[in-house]
């Protein structure tokens, strides 16, 4: 569905909110904070952000947190508890459950699998690497849970760089 064109000045300010979430995805980003960065009303913000970037702001934040957690699991020896707190979750249980819902495997399983696979990641700029590992969360996590509980299979769940 085509989205009506948006004012470039508004888009530039919405981009600033997205950039700020990118730079500090572990922080709390309530709508009033994001709306303040973009200098739009709270009522207007979420809708405008979704029109501009294709997903609601908090789902975008979730994709960044999951992506960052995946990088920590792959590249560091931090404990899963440390990773959960460093990527912005307040509870290990919520982290584990959300991570599994989004990626299809537990943080521990992903770590074992990633550590067993050799990588040549130093040649790819970090921003591309992180974007390539970002989950394609095109539905809400709650909806994803519901579909999977109902046995509905979705294709093209995620893409990975080889």
């Amino acid at each position, binding site marked *: 569905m085509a989205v009506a064109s948006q004012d470039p000045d508004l888009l530039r300010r919405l*981009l600033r909110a997205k950039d700020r979430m990118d730079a500090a995805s572990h922080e709390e980003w309530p709508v009033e904070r994001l709306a303040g960065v973009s200098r739009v009303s709270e009522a207007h913000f979420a809708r405008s952000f979704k029109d501009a970037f294709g997903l609601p702001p908090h789902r975008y934040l979730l994709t960044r947190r999951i992506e960052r957690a995946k990088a920590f699991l792959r590249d560091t020896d931090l404990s899963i508890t440390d990773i959960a707190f460093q990527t912005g979750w307040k509870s290990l249980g919520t982290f584990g459950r959300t991570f599994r819902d989004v990626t299809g495997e537990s943080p521990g399983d992903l770590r074992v699998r990633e550590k067993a696979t050799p990588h040549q990641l130093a040649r790819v700029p970090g921003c591309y690497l992180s974007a390539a590992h970002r989950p394609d969360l095109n539905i809400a996590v709650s909806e994803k849970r519901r579909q999977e509980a109902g046995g509905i299979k979705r294709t093209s769940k995620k893409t990975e760089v080889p």
Partner: protein
Amino acid sequence: MNQGVGLVGLYVRDQEEALQFYVEKLGFRVHTDVKNGDYRWLTVQHPEQPSFQLGLYKPGPPVLDAKTAETVREIVAKGAMPPLVLEVDDCRVAYERMRGRGVEFTQEPVERYGSVDANFRDPSGNGWKMIEPRKVSS
């Protein structure tokens, strides 16, 4: 002659604003600035790279029709144009200097695999990665 890429253009929302940004905040020089009615051909250059020009263009007629120009302005403002890379000798020093001049950084300097990089945007939304390459020991 030297063969190779001589010019790459960026779309900017306002050429005067872009000129000020690239010259005063980033330290580029004006290479060509020619006005013809509403049209302005504007290119800048890195002081250490005389064979390369960076064009700063405003999307619009006669090159683009009004509707296409509007779409381009939206894409630029969303940060969806491809990223650019500025190489520097010392990323942290350049970061402090540029930040002091009011450049909008979107990532502080981070060391990865021996190189150091930071991200910033121009006023229009074009995203730059500033990289201090890994020192190759000889």
